């Protein structure tokens, strides 16, 4: 299953877990390979054994049988404490140590590994910064003095403290309000683009799985793999009825989370640079087929929209203020994020910035519409195709019209 050409980082071989007093094993004969540098999501209904499977990787739960390989090394019998210091671990309840400061919390594993104090202090500050917080302000605070979102960031920072290659995350954003969760997810994806850890991520939320995963393992009872593939493939070609049910109808809209702004052709918009004189600006607007101009400052950073009204009322050359216009997205944003931005700002055009914050193009709502239409066509074809291969014994499955 190393279709993207990645090296295998974690290999599970016929892993089984039987809890005492339970007839069915929680995990039964699971084998899978997790490629290096990817986010692999375990997703499935509650009780399917996804968390148990994850906890066997760092041996918080000892497998009844089967083997675990990390970097081709059999760690099934390795010292569990040593093993766990090589693997970052984040849980839903975070579990920060309430009696320790943020700095002490983050320093936990480096201390266990015997780093010297200077190195630990530097690493702590680096990590607090990495998760978007100010080290000077936060390092000496206690967990109870942070908000839920901040605690979650520190939980992630703590898991990364000794720079482990592998991180295990058990519903890490599960207990956070939706808006903060969305932001943390985006931040984490941006971070992962830099750090390229191998991440095993457990969730019950298929939307989160589609958003976060390079690959998704959809698990059914006993941690049986129903499908293990990229989000794209799972949405386009669900392996069976269980998977199709689990991803739900309206999968075509879910695919908006798969395309990113950087993957589509950006539109052009007439721009005007601050300092341009009024007559030229008026000419630019009348010559364009749009109703407004995008104002850029001298560095090429968008500063606002200029309409005919502005130009009629203006007296001197165009001036740029601070601040960004509404509906701004970056290349890493998904089309779903972009649509969201537009709806929030009530604009039909989103401005795309490059990585340096300069204007690089626009996404119009028509572009997103077209993407949705394309996805719907694909989805309908799939549903039609399914009707042909379904067994004749099946009651005609009521196929909802894709909306």
């Amino acid at each position, binding site marked *: 299953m190393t279709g993207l050409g990645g090296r295998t980082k974690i290999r599970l071989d016929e892993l089984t877990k039987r809890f005492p007093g339970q007839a069915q094993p929680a995990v039964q004969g699971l084998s899978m390979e997790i490629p290096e540098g990817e986010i692999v999501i375990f997703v499935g209904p509650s009780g399917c054994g996804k968390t148990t499977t994850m906890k066997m990787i760092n041996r918080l739960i000892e497998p009844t049988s089967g083997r675990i390989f990390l970097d081709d090394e059999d760690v099934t019998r390795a010292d569990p404490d040593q093993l766990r210091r090589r693997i970052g671990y984040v*849980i839903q*309840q975070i*579990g*920060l*140590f309430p*009696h*320790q400061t943020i700095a002490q919390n983050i320093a936990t594993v480096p201390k266990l590994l015997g780093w010297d104090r200077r190195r630990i202090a530097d690493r702590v500050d680096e990590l607090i910064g990495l998760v978007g917080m100010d080290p000077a302000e936060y390092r000496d605070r*206690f967990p*109870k003095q942070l908000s839920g979102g901040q605690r979650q960031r520190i939980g992630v920072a703590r898991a990364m403290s000794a720079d482990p290659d592998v991180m295990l995350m058990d519903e890490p954003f599960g207990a956070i309000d939706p808006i903060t969760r969305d932001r943390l997810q985006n931040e984490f994806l941006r971070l992962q683009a830099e750090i390229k850890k191998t991440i095993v991520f457990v969730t019950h939320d298929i939307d989160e799985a589609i958003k976060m995963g390079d690959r998704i393992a959809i698990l059914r009872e006993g941690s049986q793999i129903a499908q293990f593939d990229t989000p794209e493939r799972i949405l386009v070609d669900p392996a069976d009825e269980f998977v199709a049910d689990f991803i739900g109808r309206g999968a075509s809209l879910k695919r908006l989370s798969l395309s990113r702004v950087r993957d589509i052709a950006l539109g052009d918009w007439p721009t005007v640079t601050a300092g341009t004189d009024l007559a030229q600006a008026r000419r630019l607007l009348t010559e364009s087929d749009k109703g407004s101009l995008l104002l850029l400052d001298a560095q090429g950073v968008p500063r606002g929209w200029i309409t005919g009204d502005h130009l009629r009322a203006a007296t001197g050359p165009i001036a740029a203020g601070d601040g960004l216009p509404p509906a701004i997205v970056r290349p890493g944003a998904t089309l779903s994020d972009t649509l969201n931005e537009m709806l929030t700002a009530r604009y039909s055009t989103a401005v795309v910035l490059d990585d340096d914050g300069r204007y690089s193009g626009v996404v119009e709502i028509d572009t997103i519409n077209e993407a949705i239409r394309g996805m719907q066509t694909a989805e309908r074809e799939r549903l039609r195709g399914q009707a042909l291969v379904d067994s004749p014994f099946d009651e005609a499955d009521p196929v909802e019209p894709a909306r």
Partner: protein
Amino acid sequence: MNFVDYLGNRWDNLLELGVEHALVTALAVAIATVIGVGLGLLTYDRPRLRQLVIATCSVFLTIPSLALFGLFISWLGLGTTPVVTALVMYSLLPIVANTIVGLRGVDPAVVESAQGMGMSRVQRLFRIELPLAWPVILTGMRVSTLLALGIVAIGAYILGPGLGNDIFAGLSRISSPNALNLVLGGTLGVIVLAILFDLLFVLLNRLTTSRGVR
């Protein structure tokens, strides 16, 4: 002699008895803390053993102190040793019980994350679980101390040290002029000690508990 004059005259005697009283109490609570926290650590996650230990310590506490001192005479004789032994027995329950409650009250997510980061059992216990249970354990020690202060006084009956000596001396010659002053002085001394110990525990709590859990 009125009570104020009495205090002026016998000040040094009261102070000496008070210091003895405090030292015996402190010694007994210290021993009980070592034993009690140890028992708590060994039993907090073993339900059967935990119940056995709590039940045993509860039985100790129900034995009337006079009877216990009497029983000890043939075994440990008279004086400080039997008094300290009895005090340790009485002080155990609050400390053991609070150690168990404190350790069991530690958020399982905190323990799991500690384990998940590769802390060994001993490291988890000393760096995470005990520091988090500490304020509760300290409360147990405080209760034990107050309990012990009262019982030391009765220890004077078998020639133990402390303010009980004045109290018993007063009680044994109840019609003599200074009897009431003796009893009053000893009793007041115990109360003053109780207040001082209480302040000490407030201070100890401030100094030894992380700001993060206060």
